[in-house]
């Protein structure tokens, strides 16, 4: 049912059941919010979105007030603006005020609100909190002094990720957000996904920077610095430079990385192809030899830690394949090191990831051989943006270049890894070929594409019916695993991505992206797959050469040593 409501003395159309905030947004009226998360139940905690209800004379929160027939509100009356301003002034009263030194300078909601509401003096002077920062996690740094207690991180961690590593502690002016016993992220069940960083309005949550190590290596003449970037980076980096969301700037990025001084520019998508060779072989092996099924993908380090903590009984189901980042890391410090005559200890291997959990993954004990890490530093998309700006590379003025051989050539199947369902689609393309010797006629599998949290299909390969499930957002993974524990037995292969939508929406991505930007990144990956001709991993000539010259065959002896790993049950505060 639709009806008219009065907003700022004009009539606009509203649907019954809608929240006022949504109606205002649709009509081009921007009401500021802090605790609001789109499509989630409103909490109404921050009061930023108050509007004046002329019927009752009260201020009501637009996010949590359903529209009513005959409603009459003012969204920017002097009283409303004054109230919002006071809220910001109160939030600033105990804020550290160190914007110039803050990781979120120029990209901070508190800063923007203060500017929009013309806060020009400190009216309310509160006692500063002086909390300790939490540097204990491998991927995420927390600075409770900058926290404004909006609670978005708590809700994302609980409702979307099903992890609940953090919650409010204490009450009133002593409230903080922290882990169990406030003991630090490293003792908690945090899976390092970084979704909390994406929703944090201030600098209270940020990634652990690997900047210094990378710059030191770039300036160290002994080190050969190689870089790899994940499939999702080329379609996400544009937004860091105010270019349209989803624009594929792979070539420009290659050129920029060389300008910064990286000696070799490799593409993680190459090793995504390699992952597919190993993973598809592993799936077939498990099916033919009554191995543990369903097999579950292992590309996502957030998911892996989640499984190790909450579902250790599923560890045998996890594919033993390392993630593409770690596969390429291992290949660089073995095959490429041999081939180029550079000792592994003189190679500094950097990866650019849309992900904060990759920082944790690179530091896992299993990802080191003879005391040398396969990957030395992991930068997020955001950190790459900073690095490019710091080195003064003008992204609008450089010519595209191609990545380096031998680990820079890729199929479009590998590129799909960036979006939920992509690993599965690429794996099916190759598994089909491995089983039947033929190629699929229709490569695209629309049923497992898109941003839905859970996608399931059945496919038939040579008379074998395979049940396929794709989940993203760990809360969805939890639901699926519980169903399997309760007897669901029609799935054989599961892809899990921790972040909603997959790596295109990873915790290391540009902050401030909305759903349309995420969609644009996804469509850009699909477009690459549509346009390019090399659509399957097993036909990548550099992959074929790598097996021929070095690895011999998927699941072979060297593969096991370099490309496969194992997992451990983790005892954390959960």
């Amino acid at each position, binding site marked *: 049912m639709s009806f008219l409501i009065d907003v700022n003395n004009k009539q606009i159309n509203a649907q019954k059941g809608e929240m006022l905030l949504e109606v205002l947004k649709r009509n081009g009226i921007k009401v500021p919010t802090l605790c609001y998360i789109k499509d989630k139940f409103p909490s109404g905690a921050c009061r930023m979105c108050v509007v004046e209800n002329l019927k009752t004379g009260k201020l009501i929160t637009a996010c949590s007030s359903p529209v009513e027939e005959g409603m009459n509100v003012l969204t920017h009356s002097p009283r409303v603006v004054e109230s919002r301003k006071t809220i910001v002034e109160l939030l600033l009263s105990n804020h550290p005020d160190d914007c110039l030194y803050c990781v979120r300078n120029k990209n901070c909601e508190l800063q923007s609100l203060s500017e929009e509401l013309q806060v020009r003096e400190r009216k309310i002077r509160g006692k500063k909190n002086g909390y300790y920062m939490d540097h204990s996690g491998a991927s995420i740094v927390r600075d409770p002094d900058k926290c404004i207690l909006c609670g978005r991180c708590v809700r994302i961690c609980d409702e979307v990720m099903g992890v*609940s*590593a953090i919650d409010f502690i*204490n*009450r009133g002016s002593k409230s903080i957000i922290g882990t*169990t*016993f406030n003991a630090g992220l490293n003792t*908690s069940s945090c899976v390092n996904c970084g979704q909390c960083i994406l929703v944090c309005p201030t600098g209270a949550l940020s990634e652990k920077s690997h900047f210094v190590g990378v710059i030191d290596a770039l300036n160290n003449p002994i080190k050969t610095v190689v870089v790899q970037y994940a499939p999702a980076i080329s379609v996400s980096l544009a937004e860091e430079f105010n270019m349209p969301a989803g624009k594929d700037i792979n070539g420009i990025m290659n050129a920029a990385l060389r300008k910064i001084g990286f000696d070799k520019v490799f593409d993680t998508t190459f090793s995504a192809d390699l992952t597919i060779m190993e993973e598809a072989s592993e799936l077939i092996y498990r099916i033919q030899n009554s191995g543990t099924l369903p097999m579950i993908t292992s590309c996502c380090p957030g998911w892996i830690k989640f499984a190790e903590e909450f579902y250790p009984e599923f560890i045998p189901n996890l594919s033993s394949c390392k993630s593409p980042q770690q596969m390429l890391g291992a290949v660089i410090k073995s095959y490429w090191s041999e081939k180029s005559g550079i000792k592994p200890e003189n190679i500094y291997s950097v990866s650019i990831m849309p992900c904060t959990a990759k920082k944790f993954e690179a530091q896992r004990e299993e990802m080191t051989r003879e005391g040398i890490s396969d990957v030395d530093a992991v930068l997020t998309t955001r950190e790459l943006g900073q690095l490019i700006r710091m080195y003064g590379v003008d992204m609008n003025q450089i010519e595209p270049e191609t990545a380096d051989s031998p680990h820079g050539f890729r199929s479009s199947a590998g590129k799909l890894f960036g979006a939920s369902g992509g690993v599965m689609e690429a794996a099916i393309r190759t598994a089909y070929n491995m089983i039947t010797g033929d190629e699929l006629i229709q490569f695209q599998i629309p049923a497992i594409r898109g941003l839905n949290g859970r996608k399931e299909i059945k496919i038939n390969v040579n008379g074998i019916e395979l049940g396929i499930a794709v989940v993203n957002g760990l809360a969805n993974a939890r639901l699926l695993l519980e169903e399997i524990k309760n007897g669901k037995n029609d799935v054989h292969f599961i892809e899990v991505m921790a972040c909603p939508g997959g790596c295109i929406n990873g915790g290391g991505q540009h902050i401030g992206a909305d759903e349309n930007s995420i969609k644009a990144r996804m469509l850009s990956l699909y477009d690459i797959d549509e346009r390019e001709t090399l659509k399957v991993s097993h036909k990548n000539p550099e992959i074929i050469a790598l097996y021929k010259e070095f690895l011999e065959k998927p699941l072979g002896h060297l593969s096991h040593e370099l490309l496969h790993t194992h997992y451990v049950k983790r005892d954390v*505060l959960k």
Partner: protein
Amino acid sequence: MNTQVQEVFEKYPQASRDNLIPILQDIQEKEGFISQESIIEIGRFLNLATSKIFGVATFYNQFRFQPVGKYHVQVCRGTACHVLGSATVLEELEKTIKTKAGQTSKDGMFSIEVVACIGACGLAPVICVNGNFHAKVSKESIRKIIENYRNQQ
């Protein structure tokens, strides 16, 4: 698992998260405080994240996370006591035994609890040590009171 905690759980055969606060209260009743182990056990019992349990438990003043000291000092912060200076008394007490409200001194001798009103407003500001009331305490007298208890051991 601790048998006292086990006994508490047995009282709640169909427990859900709604029972969290009563369970916390029962455990504190039995053990005198809420230990980290108890929080982890409650998490398993109710299938609830420990961060949430810790969050709820720290929200309420009534829950303690350390065992009480040999002398448990309750400081009344009700209206009458407040008007007559209980804030200063509390501050002095925290200084004297080098312990914050809600905590227990390192030597295990003293613990402080802030209570809303003991119902002895005529004696304000009032404190209660192991059930013994001390009336009209001041910044000066609180030190002597504590000193006496310390010497009693």
